[in-house]
């Protein structure tokens, strides 16, 4: 029987392994960066989220919506954690359409904490028209809606290493992936070449460059740093309770290990006099 298992294992390895190797070198896979929120004890870096918010607000938000993000979220613990006054100030800088009022008319008023992040375009067709026919995707959960393809051994080891950062790695890589198209590749009109975009031809022009957004805390104002910060911010936007989740998870683990230990000894005691 051992032989069968060995044979089977070999067959499985062939089945899984061969195509995985063959697929390699096809595309440039996003590099796995190190993130403060990775791993069982990972937490968001508040300063990084605040910087990322600045990049998001000054650059991304001019084309992309983030409909599930509310101004009140900006003051949330385990997030950018601005003071409530700061979040209110941000909100009041935007004009929100409200109404209808008593005269039956829609009107503009300054944003409140309970408003969601205002979309740059009134609807999808308007967004398309303004962006050469391509719809800029909503960024609220984009960090969970993107991942890079993981081959055979990777998808198993990822379960053990708790790798959940495929989306942020992809965003970081994408923002850094604008390069000259290799020879022989014709980039279609209105599209741009990106090393990491599936198909390599992306409608979004290179959005970030060195020095574009002003950082006041001494962090280097580089493309790499911007993309790292904004990716972290988008991860928070997609998963605002990550800090809480990991904290509770640790408590649950300690508790369950203690309980299973106790149950193990209880079980041994109960079965002590029974041959089984």
């Amino acid at each position: 029987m051992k032989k069968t298992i060995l044979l089977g294992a070999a067959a499985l390895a062939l089945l899984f392994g061969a195509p995985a190797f063959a697929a390699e070198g096809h595309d440039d896979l996003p590099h796995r960066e190190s993130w403060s929120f990775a791993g069982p004890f990972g937490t968001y870096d508040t300063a990084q989220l605040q910087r990322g918010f600045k990049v998001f607000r000054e650059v991304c938000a001019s084309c992309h919506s983030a409909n599930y993000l509310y101004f009140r979220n900006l003051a949330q613990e385990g997030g950018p954690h601005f003071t409530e006054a700061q979040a209110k100030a941000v909100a009041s800088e935007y004009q929100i359409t409200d109404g209808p009022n008593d005269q039956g008319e829609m009107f503009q008023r300054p944003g409140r904490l309970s408003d969601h992040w205002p979309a740059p375009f009134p609807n999808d067709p308007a967004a398309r028209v303004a962006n050469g026919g391509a719809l800029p995707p909503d960024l609220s959960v984009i960090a969970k809606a993107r991942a890079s393809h993981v081959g055979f051994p990777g998808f198993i080891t990822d379960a053990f290493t708790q790798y959940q950062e495929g989306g942020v790695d992809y965003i970081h890589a994408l923002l850094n992936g604008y390069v000259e198209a290799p020879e022989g590749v014709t980039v279609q009109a209105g599209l741009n070449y990106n090393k990491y975009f599936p198909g390599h031809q992306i409608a979004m022009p290179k959005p970030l460059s060195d020095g574009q957004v002003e950082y006041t805390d001494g962090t280097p104002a580089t493309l790499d740093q911007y993309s790292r910060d904004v990716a972290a911010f988008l991860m928070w936007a997609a998963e605002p309770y990550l800090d809480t989740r990991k904290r509770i998870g640790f408590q649950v683990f300690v508790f369950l290990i203690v309980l299973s230990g106790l149950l193990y000894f209880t079980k041994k005691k109960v079965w002590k006099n029974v041959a089984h």
Partner: protein
Amino acid sequence: MAHTETTQTTRRDFLYIATGAVGAVGVAGMIWPFVAQLQPDASVLALSTTEVDLSPIQEGQIITTQWRGKPIFIFNRAPKDIEAARAVQLSQLPDPQLDQDRVKKGHDNWLVVVGICTHLGCVPLGHQGNYDGWFCPCHGSQYDSSGRVRVGPAPLNLAVPPYAFNSDTKITIG
């Protein structure tokens, strides 16, 4: 021999009790999130204040606005309404309360009350009944121009929500 038996029993009992107790704590801990999810969520809490512009409300007019999903009556009272409310003897009221305590000082013409009958939660009708206030169509309770119950099964006056004047013509409820 007997002595050994006793110690063994005690140790075993301790293990059982410890396991049971830890298990019970776990069950209680697991129940909590499922109970906590019932409370008002963050989007509801975010809407827990309402700003109202009083300038369009004419003297003698009652408007209805919403706060936390409940109707709020805002009554711009004429001087005769205030006088009537203040002339009543407290002993005649089922739920004695001074009109002065139900309005903000310096803004005595503005009455702000939760528009829910304190009997069983219907919405009373304005400018009806015998007391120039509200009349509840469900069971006939009547309220005066200070929102105090005068007749009927309702036990309490219309509640005054927490609110503050931001300026002479703007209030924030909640």
